[in-house]
């Protein structure tokens, strides 16, 4: 288990220039999370490398505290286009 705000803080601390972040506890048990992460750091990276950036940011949280994580990564341009 880990608190949502700690997941958010970890992501903001380890992924540069996060412009938009959503972290949702899917089950209320603080171990199944859904996230949306927007940062220019994803620019030019493959899907696998984008997600690895997130897993690296979360580090040991992925080795127990977080059981399940589903997330989407966007560059600010793609996020704006979606919202547009």
């Amino acid at each position, binding site marked *: 288990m880990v608190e949502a705000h700690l997941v958010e803080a970890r992501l903001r601390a380890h992924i540069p220039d996060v412009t938009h972040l959503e972290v949702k506890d899917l089950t209320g048990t603080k171990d199944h999370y859904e996230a949306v992460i927007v940062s220019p750091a994803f620019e030019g990276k493959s899907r*696998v490398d984008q997600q*690895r950036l997130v*897993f690296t940011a979360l580090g040991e949280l*992925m*080795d127990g505290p977080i059981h399940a*994580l*589903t997330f989407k990564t966007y560059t600010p341009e793609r996020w704006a286009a979606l919202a547009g």
Partner: protein
Amino acid sequence: MDDATRERIQTLVDTHPVLLFMKGNRLFPRCGFSATVVEVLKRSGVDFEVIDVLTDPEIRQGIKEFTNWPTIPQLYVQGKFVGGCDIVRDLYENGELDEVLAPVKNG
């Protein structure tokens, strides 16, 4: 991870053109994400092999190190890591999975 496990994993990914490391098996997936990838692969009409990591603790831990990827399921095509559930679903929804699977599609 010991060398024996690393070799076992290497052999598995080299042997099976489409290989899914998952929780459970294709008839009884034991996690939603694994079930989603099985469903996507079935719809893509490709033959695929499944490894139920719940029955093999060495592989369950070893594959995370092998791929440098902390979660299960993990999809391999022609020995190359494609992604977990989020990525496979994203590829499928964007019509790009067929491209990835084209080299191994039968007929």
